[in-house]
């Protein structure tokens, strides 16, 4: 049955793709890159093509979860992918990645901060599979004109005073991370009793929450519709520049330190090109161009000195004091069963 369906799918896909992708000969000098939308400055890709003669075929995804099945089912043979921490671990566990040859990645060895490799060990224990490309933490963005209390703890998101002015992230892991941290637990908690307690806290918080959001947090914070919002530090840099009343704080209980890293797939057909591409992305001049386009903090230690924009250069959000990200945890892949448990609890929060 599955085969018949697959054949039907392929037929349908073939009919509607204009039958044009069939002539893919292995001789072509190409590299297939699969990454987040708006994650690479297009100018750097042109430079890469000019310098190496390797044609970059770029595809984008908007969640790790939508990327995974496309790679695992082998729909397209990507060479280089840029997933997040826990997803890299899942891909390693499921034998979808291959170890990198660091001799071919001199720029990565030279420029990527030691600390980021150390932090990567939580999902790539031997630093064999991944090269960090972007990183960040989750924190609270707040409007200094409206929020009078000091913002240094996640507890402020349970303060009745700010009813209907709080934005939470609409994703199970990010939502549960907060009560877990208040309880002093790990954000990779797998004890169901503790998770149930965390759920109770989220249910209690729900009447105070204006909305559970993902991207909308940016607009709502800039326009002043909400006064407190849980946000990724990468967005925070651009927001603080757009609205000077906004400030970013990393709560003292700890938070999620996320890393997106370059990896190479197990079935990569352009291994050499893939290494060249990753190495190129680690070059300081390229990293600067990407940083300026993206605004996400970069693990590339050479970037800060090359920046000309003073706002960026002096931003504590983009280049925080190293102490802010010491002892922070990174998400781990908790297995399918635990994933669905988180999802189920999150749904219960929503229907309660």
């Amino acid at each position, binding site marked *: *049955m*599955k085969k018949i*369906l697959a054949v*039907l799918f392929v037929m*349908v896909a073939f*009919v509607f793709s204009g039958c044009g992708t069939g002539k893919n000969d292995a001789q072509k000098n190409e590299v297939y890159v699969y990454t987040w939308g708006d994650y690479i400055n297009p100018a750097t890709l042109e430079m890469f093509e000019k310098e190496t003669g390797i044609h970059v075929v770029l595809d984008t995804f908007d*969640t790790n*979860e*939508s990327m*995974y*099945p496309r790679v695992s089912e082998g729909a397209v043979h990507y060479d280089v992918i840029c997933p997040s921490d826990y997803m890299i671990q899942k891909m390693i566990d499921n034998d979808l990645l291959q170890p990198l040859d660091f001799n071919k990645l001199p720029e990565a060895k030279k420029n990527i901060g030691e600390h980021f490799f150390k932090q990567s060990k939580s999902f790539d224990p031997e630093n064999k599979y991944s090269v960090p490309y972007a990183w960040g933490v989750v924190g609270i963005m707040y409007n200094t004109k409206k929020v009078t209390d000091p913002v240094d703890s996640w507890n402020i998101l349970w303060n009745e005073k700010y009813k*209907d*002015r709080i934005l939470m992230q*609409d*994703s199970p892991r990010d939502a549960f991370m907060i009560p877990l941290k208040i309880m002093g637990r790990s954000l990779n908690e797998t004890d169901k009793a503790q998770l149930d307690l965390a759920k109770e806290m989220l249910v209690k918080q*729900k009447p105070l*929450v*204006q*909305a*559970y*959001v993902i991207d909308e947090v940016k607009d709502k914070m800039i*326009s*002043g*519709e*909400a006064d407190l919002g849980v946000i990724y530090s990468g967005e925070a840099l651009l927001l603080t520049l757009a609205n000077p009343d906004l400030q970013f704080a990393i709560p003292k209980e700890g938070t999620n330190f996320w890393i997106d890293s370059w990896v190479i797939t197990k079935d990569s057909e352009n291994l050499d090109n893939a290494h060249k591409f990753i190495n190129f992305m680690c070059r300081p001049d390229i990293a600067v161009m990407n940083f300026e386009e993206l605004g996400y903090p970069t693990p590339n230690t050479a970037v800060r000195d090359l920046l000309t924009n003073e706002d960026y250069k002096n931003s504590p959000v983009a280049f925080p004091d190293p102490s802010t990200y010491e002892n922070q945890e990174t998400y781990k892949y908790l297995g399918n069963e635990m*994933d*669905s448990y988180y*999802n*189920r609890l999150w*749904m*219960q929060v*929503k*229907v309660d």
Partner: protein
Amino acid sequence: MFRSIKMRNLFLAPFCVWAGIFIFVPLVCIIYYGLTDMSGNFTFDNLAIISHREYYSSLQLSIILALVTTIVCLLLAYPLCLILVDKAKSVGTIIILLFVLPLWMNTLLSTMAWQTIFERDGILNQVLRLLSLPDMTLINTPTAVVIGMIYNYLPYMVLPLYVALSKIDKSIFEAARDLGANSWQTFSKVTLPLSLPGAISGITMVFIPSLTTFAISALLGGSKLLLIGNVIEQEFTVEYDWHLGSALSIILMIFIIINMVITLVFDKSTKEDEN
């Protein structure tokens, strides 16, 4: 209409291909995924998930909101259409056109516009403040979602109703009057039964999209309300559990089929009455 069967089949072919690829194949896929587990074995477990509270509450909420939307649409559209059929044809058509205008704009865009109206510092509250009235918190409530659905789906109720009402021969009313019916009797014995087919297709066309919506509830509900459409979307895009998502779609289809059966039964009984 077409003289030879060959000719008829030729004209039927494009539709058959279309229906095959875009209706039949997806249906088979949904049923296949809904009734199998990860390893491809036949199972009813996916369907049983609806017995869990978080799933049936979302279905329940969807049904309630869809019913409210449908009833309000019917109550708004019926009197409007009754008035319009009495107007000169040209006037009626223009007013109907105005009611259908929202359809010219993308649903997502118009729903986003509602968002800016309902927001905490939105247009509605600014007007209320200007009149020294207290603020209303509508955004991210069931009311906001229902208003958004009514706005988007009202034209689907108005159009079939207007067509059904305007098709009724005026002389029938005159005959009813002639035979001594007062205006209430004319309405309940003549107008209402004759307009029922229009009302029924309007109800179906409003109820089904209201039941399955996920965009309107996401935008105006702030993801604080979980409708069955949102759950299905999440199963496919976040959890990547196609089996569960398909099973929930099957359950949703069952409710749609129930709705269609009820309306068909109604439709049939009115036709029999006419005979």
